[in-house]
């Protein structure tokens, strides 16, 4: 349904005076999502996860240049087409209630989303009530303002905004940080349910643990590139291909809790070779010469020359 290949996003910024500098925030990024599939996008902050969502929704700022291809349902996704599709065929589950209008009740806001998708006011209201009911929100919730919702209720309202659309692709941006484990599981299950109706879901998160609970496949981002796309079960069976993914898995508190020192390379000065080469335990001189290609190894995609089948 969605295929992204070799996507790069570069920002042009003024440095000093009229001197400009280029920030390569996303380089050679690949991702695909099938109908009825939940793909988790995992990576550290600054790895380009949220920018990918912005690119899909066509809301990048004016100083961004985009190269590579994004195809949605077989047709290239141009900025004009994403503008036409966002909110109808592509929907976003935002990060927090901060994305809602603070001065409008949540019922009216969700109803408005349904109306913008072509429903008349009456049926839109019924659909909003049915959706809230479906997520066990109390009967007075539609009359509440965003600030009156608890964390868990807010999650369900935000998921509702995507459910009342007929979107084929739902993008959920960091829906779970700092929530109680029960609320996390509940939110993730709601996202999982969406795939049952044949929708594709992209779950953007830094929390591998949460991602593995519901995802079919996991794409691992590092410094704006896809380093690995693995099946969710590859993590627990230890069948991981890229050194960064292995390090990320080992650093979980329930595993070894050891960290790789250092930082992601800065987008102002990306190394010419593999982006992980300065922190990688397996680095060789070959790694530092050219960017590794994405290869198909053991039923998964990996961008590392040392991964063996």
């Amino acid at each position, binding site marked *: 349904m969605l295929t992204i290949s070799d996507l790069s996003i570069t920002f042009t910024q003024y440095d000093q005076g009229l001197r400009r500098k280029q920030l390569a925030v996303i380089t050679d990024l690949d991702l695909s999502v099938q109908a009825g599939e939940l793909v988790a996008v995992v990576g550290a902050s600054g790895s380009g996860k949220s920018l990918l969502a912005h690119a899909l929704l066509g809301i990048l700022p004016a100083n961004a240049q985009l190269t590579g291809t994004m195809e949605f349902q077989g047709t290239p996704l141009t900025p004009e087409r994403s503008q036409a599709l966002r909110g109808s065929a592509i929907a976003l589950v935002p990060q927090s209630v901060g994305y809602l209008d603070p001065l409008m009740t949540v019922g009216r806001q969700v109803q408005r989303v349904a109306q913008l998708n072509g429903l008349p006011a009456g049926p839109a209201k019924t659909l909003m009530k049915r959706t809230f009911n479906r997520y066990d929100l109390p009967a007075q919730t539609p009359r509440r303002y965003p600030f009156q919702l608890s964390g868990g209720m807010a999650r369900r309202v935000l998921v509702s905004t995507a459910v009342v659309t007929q979107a084929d692709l739902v993008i959920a941006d960091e829906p779970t940080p700092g929530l109680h484990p029960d*609320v996390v599981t509940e939110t993730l299950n709601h996202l999982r349910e969406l795939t049952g109706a044949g929708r594709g879901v992209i779950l953007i998160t830094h929390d591998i643990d949460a991602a593995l609970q519901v995802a079919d496949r996991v794409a691992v981002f590092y410094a704006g590139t896809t380093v690995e796309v693995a099946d969710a079960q590859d993590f627990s069976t230890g069948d991981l291909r890229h050194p960064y993914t292995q390090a990320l898995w080992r650093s979980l*508190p329930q595993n070894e809790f050891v960290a790789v020192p250092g930082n992601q390379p800065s987008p102002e000065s990306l190394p010419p070779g593999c982006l992980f080469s300065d922190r990688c335990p397996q680095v060789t001189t070959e790694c530092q010469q050219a960017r590794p290609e994405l290869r198909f190894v053991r039923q998964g995609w990996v961008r590392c020359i040392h991964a063996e089948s």
Partner: protein
Amino acid sequence: MLKAEELWFRYGAHLPWVVREQTLAIAPDDVMGLMAPSGYGKTTLGKLLAGYLTPTQGHITLDTQPLPQRGYCPVQIVFQNPELAVNPRWRIDRILREGHPPQLQYLDALGIHSSWMSRYPHELSGGELQRVAIARVLNRHTRYLIADEMTAMLDANTQALIWQVVAAFAHQYGVGVIAISHNQPLLNQICRPQAIINLSQNAAPQYTPKSPA
């Protein structure tokens, strides 16, 4: 010893109690884990201990003295969202020197790059800014550190890195740490089993102070 005795707190005279009869004590060079579902007043308790809020009833003592009202508070708190904890109009180097200047070794250990110093907070990612917020409190004048979901918005690798640095700092200067988190595996890693308190299970927390080494 940082002690809180029978703390009660509510945000207004007609509002419900947020913190009820909490008593707890933490020794230097120990890590206490605090767990509870949303709405149990964990963050409010942290703010009370760090002197951000004044308890409605009860008192807080640091080595038998009340918390100082002026100057750098020896009890420091780090929140989940660093964007709200730093002055958006200050550059990073000024933010780092807001209290006492941090030691260079911790800046290096946290991976804080010298090129960040001349930037503003919005020019760093959340994970980078959180390291700055943590580096700011890693100085000798911090005696107790309250980590309120300090690494909840960070990836696993950065989380492990930050806790390694904070644990080394706490051990070197005998700093007591209270870690507020929903993440049970994380608390199991950083606390002794007897030092993890679930506020929803015990009316009065059962915390066994660390025996002198």
